[in-house]
């Protein structure tokens, strides 16, 4: 695993997230479920708690955008870059952007939103990429069965380096 330079992390354990918009590729309820399931992966192995808010500011703003979208990392159309997220911090910090030019699904017919969101939220919490093939923080998208998905050990080790273990 790796962290960002100087290992930025959240100094609180209760984090708020807000879904700013939806992809037309999926039912909103399926987007909600994929996002919540992705957060649960990280909260199940750390003291972190994630609460969804529906208006105003939040620590992590989640949006579906295409091409140039106001940060320095424009998306590139179908394929290539799928999504990105910023390390913990004020403003953009923690925010996750998903490329609307991709085809997002709750199964494996397109890019599985749960898998990509879980990866991006790893960045939102302070993890960088891992070179361990099969780890969640591996940079390339690997189609993986998502039913009963368990966080690979390399990712557990990484996130617990930043936030410690889940409370007993």
């Amino acid at each position, binding site marked *: 695993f790796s962290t*960002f330079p100087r290992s930025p992390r959240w100094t609180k354990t209760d984090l708020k997230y807000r879904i700013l918009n939806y992809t037309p590729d999926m039912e909103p309820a399926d987007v909600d479920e994929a996002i919540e399931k992705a957060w649960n992966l990280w909260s199940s192995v750390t003291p972190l708690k994630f609460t969804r808010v529906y208006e105003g500011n939040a620590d992590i703003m989640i949006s579906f955008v295409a091409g140039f979208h106001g940060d320095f990392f424009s998306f590139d159309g179908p394929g290539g*870059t799928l*999504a*990105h997220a910023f390390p913990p911090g004020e403003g953009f910090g923690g925010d996750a952007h998903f490329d609307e030019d*991709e085809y997002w699904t709750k199964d494996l017919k397109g890019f599985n939103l749960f898998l*990509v969101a879980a990866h991006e939220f790893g*960045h939102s919490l302070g993890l960088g990429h891992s070179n361990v093939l099969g780890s969640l923080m591996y940079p*390339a*998208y690997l189609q993986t069965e998502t039913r009963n998905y368990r966080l690979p050990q390399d990712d557990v080790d990484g996130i617990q380096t930043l936030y410690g273990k889940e409370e007993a």
Partner: protein
Amino acid sequence: FPVVPETEKKNEEDMQFAEKYLEKYYKLKTEAEPIFKMKNSKPITDKIREMQEFFGLKVTGELDSNTLKVMKQPRCGIPDVGQ
């Protein structure tokens, strides 16, 4: 003009793709930033080696088919080194 053989054109396109990939994910400095060119940029072969090492590929510094295949995989937009 001499007709550029298809393979040469393909190689050129692959190299351009690879350069963009390495700029984005491995901090390759290109012509666009000449000041860095002098200071601390490593030639593209070093950056290809760095990427091959990260992905556990055979470290050759050459843009071989395996390396290109990994570069073309859909992925996260965050750099792999020195974010």
